[in-house]
């Protein structure tokens, strides 16, 4: 929401974390790194770009105060939810958005509190989607929930990380709207939502194999012939990383 960036304190508009990427000293060496500019290995690349190493910075815990309404949301949840310290793994504020990293098995409970507590009132579950952080750690599949509070006009993001064959409780009993969105996340990423009334594929045919949005699933294009020359599909071309 752009109002989140504009109104509550201009300190949120400070340079986002990671804006000065590129210097290896900034990121810890444990984080996944990519080599080379084009991602091509074993070729006679004499351009010099082959030696390029690029790391993906991880998101760090943000120190308090978070600014804006984020402190209020954080405190209200801490007060209303007894298992807060156990369930919330990390709190990140970036680009004027609050992200609570939640333990996957607690996601349903947290959503229940977020919806019902007087001071939180996140009535609308805007979106449920997945992101595959391949190569980050074993819990590479992240399920991302965006909750909207219509009463207070706030948006908050919950993120739960699970391993490839991971499971987490479904939030359909709290937010019925998550029904199809969880099915889509299952279809595209293979995350299993326990307690979902009908967890089947939704976009792909029922007999489809694999989960297309995973990073290790190929794009699956075919080579195209154009005026005699073969042009490979986008995922097989030399591209800038």
């Amino acid at each position, binding site marked *: 929401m752009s109002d989140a960036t504009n109104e509550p304190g201009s300190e949120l508009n400070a340079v986002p974390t990671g804006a000065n990427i590129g210097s290896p000293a900034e990121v810890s060496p444990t984080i996944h790194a990519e080599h080379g500019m084009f991602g091509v290995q074993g070729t006679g690349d004499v351009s010099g770009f082959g030696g390029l190493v690029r790391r993906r910075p991880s998101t760090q815990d943000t120190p308090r105060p978070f600014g804006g309404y984020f402190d209020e949301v954080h405190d209200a949840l801490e007060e209303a939810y007894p298992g807060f310290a156990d369930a919330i793994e990390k709190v990140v504020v*970036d680009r004027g958005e609050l992200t609570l990293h939640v333990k996957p098995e607690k996601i349903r409970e947290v959503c229940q509190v977020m919806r019902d507590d007087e001071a939180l009132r996140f009535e609308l*579950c*805007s979106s449920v989607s997945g992101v595959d952080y391949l190569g980050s750690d074993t819990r590479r599949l992240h399920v*991302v929930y965006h909750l909207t509070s219509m009463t207070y006009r706030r948006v908050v993001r919950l993120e739960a990380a699970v391993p490839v064959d991971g499971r987490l409780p479904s939030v359909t009993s709290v937010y019925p709207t998550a029904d199809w*969105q969880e099915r*889509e996340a299952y279809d595209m990423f293979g995350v299993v939502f326990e307690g979902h009334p009908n967890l089947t594929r939704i*976009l*792909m045919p029922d007999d489809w194999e694999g989960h297309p949005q995973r990073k290790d699933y190929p794009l699956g294009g075919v080579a195209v012939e154009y005026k005699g020359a073969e042009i490979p599909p*986008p995922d097989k071309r030399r591209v800038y990383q």
Partner: protein
Amino acid sequence: MTTSGYATERDTTEGKVFTVTGGDWDTVTGGIDPLSNEKIVVNMGPQHPSTHGVLRLVLELEGETVTEVRPVIGYLHTGIEKNLEYRNWVQGTTFVTRMDYLAPLFNEAGYCFAVEKLLGITDDIPERAQTIRVMFMELNRISSHLVWLATTGMELGAISMMLYGFREREYILDIFEETSGLRMNHAYFRPGGLAQDVPDTALAKIRDFLVYLPKKLKEYEAMLSGQVIWQERTQGVAVLDVTGCLSLGITGPVLRAAGLPWDLRKTMPYAGYEKYEFDVPTAQTADVWGRYLVRLAEIRESLKIVEQCLDRLRPGAVMVKDKKIAWPAQLAIGVDGMGNSLEHVAKIMGQSMESLIHHFKLVTEGFRVPPGQVYVGIEHPRGELGVHAVSDGGTHPYRVHYRDPSFVNLQAIPAMAEGALLADVIAGGASLDPVMGGCDR
């Protein structure tokens, strides 16, 4: 039916099986509940004249009454979100514009806002670019609602409405074509601004349109609002109240027709919507009729915003100043009909080697976006369009997810249709205005 030697029954996975030896029909038929066996399952779609695209509904009917509806989607799944991950950030607009093809500019706008937020340049977008964006989004909202009127009219039997809706839409498409070069799928909004400026001829056309459409709207109202058939088919049909809407995540005109004035343009303004004066129309009936009234009123409100945009429009740049992001040349149509900028070509080929390198780098490699994730919600003609974009610091999007209102809203069909009559399934489904391209992506 346990008399030995006579008909026996046993339950199998296929249902009840009777063994009839003759002369005992009464025994057999007496044991069955006539109602429960009258249920039929009807498959509607994915190819059907009034399913609004390739939507498939599996209906269980008891006579004319619908007892169960199961929508099946995915027949237009295009893998756009996956494709985006293999293209650079600027190329992304050409893909997302093809998601919801009746509201292409909203898809682009959501994407551009998300990329701009990731880049941290939301406040640097030139005033003129934002004003043109708002103006074109509102024109697009009008054209989308016109298509809704047209198709819904056709599905409920008002064929003339279909013709009128498409006739008026052509005027808006003319404006879009004059500006972006394309009738649909414009790729006109780019991260950082616009692809090119609006020509004065298009602005003149918009002024004409502002005079033209209100007259036509009166005609539609004269044709539909007072008409008994239209009223009968829409009033009290497919009711869904605020509680139902919120639990199912329904936003947009359907929610507003239930009485809740939730419009992201007002409640969480973006792109400078707080500077415009407009109302959020609502209705209290929560039925198809209310949704029709809300959409008609929204067309009028959009016209108001477009007029204010025209008044606010000042000359200026339409792209951010940062040359690391802005496309190096403003293309114009040359005499050969090709998009080109001779001035720019002369500069990079003849005068400045650095400009040539910069142009080459920006076009082939694209700009880098600092890592992180953002979520941007905008008010789409059908509800909240949410864009969740993740960057890993590279020149390509790492993941872009669209929370498309058609996708979420379609979940309401069972809640609206179960217990109602078969014919009202069409009215209810149409009133959600689903666009399958956006739904399946």
